[in-house]
């Protein structure tokens, strides 16, 4: 099969692609944002006089200069654009400057004098929930509670042969997109504003900016693509409001491109969670009761914190059928940065805990863990985890079988040649919902046009962050229409030119492109053929669409250019909603993807260091649209999760970031990953499935951590309950249990 080269490929490998942070305009100014040095403080006064007097400074803005709503947040705008009286984390913005150069803007920030009165720092959910703790928001320190109950948990526990209870801790993960937040905001001559800043939902940014600027949405154009990575991290607003306010105040284009330190300080992170699970199994190996408490540190502001907790609650029992489930979650405000959207959206955290429970339970009753999973796994017609009807597939069992085969092959080879090292193999499985869930506005749409120049333009309100949506659109469009890739042009990421498609999140892009084409192609092709029939004088029935134009009897009769010439464009649009369950259960998902992961690790007994030597991922997400894109999403997601498991943690002390750049926040390098990553797509869907290919943006990140954790147990007998797994923890555990004993005759220090 010929390799399909991504539409944006050539520009990327040659460095010619202009990212939005690469743009420059004449008369452009540079913006810098002053952020709070305190995680929690009262602002007593702000003096900007000296900064304003610095030559080269063209504007200094504070809360007084926000014409509209001084707040943002996708659902609840509780984060001040520019703080007036209180700062709640060290990334809170207090002032912003536009100047002739970055150096001058930086110097100006140093000249802004802000007096603060520090307030007690709530640096953990526990502290925030204490009686008498200062309230971070008018409604208190609880952002959201969520839960799910089914069955009689106590009577089911009573039937169990073994019960495992464990508390799991998962870290604050940094998206670490290579391109930090930034772009240029340009005031146009007609009074409108063009915002060239990456985001995952241009229309949502436009809505939020209109509210902040007190401007009609139609006066704002958001160009939001391409981006150098996002992974959920650029879903919420970041520097856009400051750039926009400075551009309006100076009448000049303003560029802001955050440094890595500024990015880490201000950006959202993955929610740290403390998850306690108590799970019971009967003597036949059937899961009977599953009780979970989730405490999420949501940081200073809401963004999508509530939805993430809802998602975590939904995925707490994963792909298993358990008669009694009792889940309670709480998302708590603290002064620890802001937690928010991140690839996996709460699923990663609970899956780590759940699959840890599964392995522990299998061991507790002396059952093979694969067999135990098979016994409890959901089948095609089973209801979803919240009791809702879901799109029926056999995905869970498919990935289990696929992973089990790999596991069976790899497990016996767990002998290490080196006496100071141990090899272990582990597996984990998961299911993951796509789309925003029941009861959430989740509109999608697209537009197909035959332009005057003869190009078939397909347009969506999606953004290209690297995930390959352009390649997906090209593939699906050409396959569905039957034309060639040269016949089409793709338009995305510009609110003035594209229809609303909803957010580029939640693994929904691929799915929504396919669904749009299902709706668009018939009326569109019909119009093309009708026009072609008229132009050629041939009966419609004898004509078809093919590469280059309209075909008859194996020959191209009419090019698209000829078809388009001298006539109005043909335009077909569609608007619809992401498919949801017919059961009205709030936040419940309908389309799920599934993965089974097998990891092999090598543990150095003398240093405690863990090396992941193999990572095999099996996926069920419907047909593969673009092989290279699919592979890239799963491999890349897997390695991102490997980092989450072994090295990544944004460390905070007393509300301050300790890890400030990529020398202290470590993401995997090429030497930290298996040289040969393995991905297997199980593409089959039931014959009656109507939902086409599912997105795979998130599924590759979900079940990797527990697979590695289970492999570590296999290697050295350590039950991992905290991520990232530190070599010190491994060492302490192996020393306590005398794992080294027996190999200990230290003539060789071992290598």
């Amino acid at each position, binding site marked *: 099969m010929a*390799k399909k080269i*991504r539409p944006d490929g050539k520009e990327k490998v040659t460095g010619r692609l202009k990212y939005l942070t690469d743009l*420059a305009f004449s008369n452009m100014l540079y913006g810098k944002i002053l952020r709070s040095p305190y995680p929690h403080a009262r602002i007593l006064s702000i003096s900007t006089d000296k900064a304003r007097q610095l030559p080269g400074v063209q504007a200094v803005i504070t809360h007084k200069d926000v014409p509209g709503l001084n707040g943002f947040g996708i659902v609840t705008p509780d984060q001040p654009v520019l703080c007036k009286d209180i700062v709640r984390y060290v990334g809170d913005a207090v002032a912003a400057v536009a100047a002739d150069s970055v150096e001058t803007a930086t110097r100006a920030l140093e000249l802004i004098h802000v007096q603060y009165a520090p307030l007690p720092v709530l640096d953990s959910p526990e502290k925030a929930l204490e009686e008498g703790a200062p309230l971070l928001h008018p409604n208190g320190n609880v952002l959201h509670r969520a839960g799910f109950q089914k069955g009689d948990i106590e009577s089911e526990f009573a039937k169990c042969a073994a019960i495992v209870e464990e508390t799991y801790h998962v870290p604050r993960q940094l998206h670490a997109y290579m391109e930090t937040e930034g772009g240029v905001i340009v005031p146009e001559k007609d009074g409108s504003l063009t915002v060239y800043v990456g985001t995952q939902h241009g229309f949502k940014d436009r809505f939020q900016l209109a509210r902040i600027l007190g401007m009609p949405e139609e006066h704002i154009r958001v160009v939001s693509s391409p981006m*150098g990575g996002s992974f959920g991290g650029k879903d919420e607003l970041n520097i856009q409001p400051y750039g926009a306010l400075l551009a309006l105040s100076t009448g000049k284009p303003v560029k802001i491109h955050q440094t890595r330190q500024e990015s880490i300080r201000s950006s959202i992170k993955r929610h740290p969670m403390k998850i306690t699970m108590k799970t019971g199994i009967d003597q036949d190996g059937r899961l009977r009761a599953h009780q979970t408490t989730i405490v999420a540190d949501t940081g200073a502001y809401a963004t999508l914190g509530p939805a993430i907790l809802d998602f975590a609650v939904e995925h707490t029992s994963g792909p298993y059928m358990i008669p009694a489930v009792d889940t309670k979650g709480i998302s708590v405000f603290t002064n620890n940065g802001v937690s928010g959207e991140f690839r996996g959206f709460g699923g990663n955290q609970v899956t780590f805990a759940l699959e840890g429970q599964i392995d522990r339970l299998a061991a507790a009753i002396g059952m093979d863990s694969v067999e135990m999973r098979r016994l409890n796994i959901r089948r095609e017609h089973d209801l979803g985890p919240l009791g809702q009807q879901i799109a029926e597939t056999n995905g869970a069992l498919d990935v289990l079988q696929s992973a089990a085969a790999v596991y069976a092959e790899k497990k016996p080879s767990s002998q290490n040649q080196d006496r100071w090292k141990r090899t272990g193999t582990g597996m984990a499985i998961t299911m993951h919902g796509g789309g925003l869930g029941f009861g959430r506005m989740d509109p999608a749409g697209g537009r197909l046009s035959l332009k005057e120049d003869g190009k078939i333009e397909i347009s969506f309100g999606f953004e290209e962050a690297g995930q390959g949506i352009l390649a997906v659109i090209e593939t699906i469009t050409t396959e569905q229409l039957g034309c060639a890739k040269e016949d089409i042009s793709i338009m995305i990421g510009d609110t003035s030119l594209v229809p609303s498609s909803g957010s580029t999140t939640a693994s929904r892009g691929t799915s929504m492109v396919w669904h749009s084409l299902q709706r668009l192609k018939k009326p569109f092709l019909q119009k093309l053929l009708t026009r072609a029939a008229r132009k050629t004088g041939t009966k419609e029935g004898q004509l078809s669409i093919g590469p280059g134009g309209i075909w008859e009897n194996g020959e191209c009769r009419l090019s698209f250019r000829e078809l388009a010439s001298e006539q109005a464009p043909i335009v077909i649009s569609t608007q619809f909603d992401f498919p949801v369950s017919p059961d009205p259960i709030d936040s419940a998902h309908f389309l799920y993807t599934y993965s089974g992961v097998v990891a092999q690790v090598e543990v150095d007994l003398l240093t405690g260091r863990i090396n992941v030597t193999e990572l095999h991922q099996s996926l069920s997400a419907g047909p593969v649209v673009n092989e290279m894109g699919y592979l890239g999403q799963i491999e890349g997601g897997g*390695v991102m999760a490997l980092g989450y498991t072994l090295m990544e943690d944004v460390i905070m002390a007393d509300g301050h970031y300790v890890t400030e750049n990529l020398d202290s926040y470590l993401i995997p390098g090429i030497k930290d990953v298996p040289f040969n990553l393995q991905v297997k797509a199980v593409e089959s869907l039931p014959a009656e499935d109507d939902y086409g290919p599912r997105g795979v943006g998130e599924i590759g990140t979900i079940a990797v951590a527990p697979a590695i954790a289970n492999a570590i147990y296999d290697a050295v007998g350590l039950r991992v309950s905290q991520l990232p797994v530190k070599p010190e923890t491994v060492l302490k555990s192996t020393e306590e249990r005398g794992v080294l004993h027996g190999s200990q005759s230290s003539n060789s220090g071992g290598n």
Partner: protein
Amino acid sequence: MEANHQTAGGTETVSVSFLLNGEHIQLNVSPVMRAVDLIRGELDQTGTKISCGIGRCGACSILVNGKLAVSCLLLAYQLEGASVITIEGLSDQDEVHPIQKAFLEEGGFQCGYCTPGMVMAAKCLLDSNPEPDRQAIQEALSGNLCRCTGYGGIIRSVQCASSK
């Protein structure tokens, strides 16, 4: 010594002349300017990226006299007399370099932001070692971070380019 003496305050500049992708460049820069800012800013060659600013991610990798360097740890004036190759200098408008072709065909990139630096590092490797083994590939690319691919596609790209 007076020839190069600069006073504090940044109002004065230092002259620097070098070859950028074969083109002679001569201009005055502030002595505090980093090479990456000169290349991306004044010279508008934005293929070279900036990400960590402390030499740990490799996104700003360029070739200085044939040797790979991170341009965030180089001061602009230090390019004096050097021949500098950036990603823009690897291919002309129509033809892509064989390494770039391999990255295209093997999925050696996604968001593309680390790609210019990664391609430069791969070129540096393949120039000196046309058939690198696993260890050589890992060593040569260990200074370049990628957050999208998990390195699978990058490894396949380099292997593909090396066998050509």
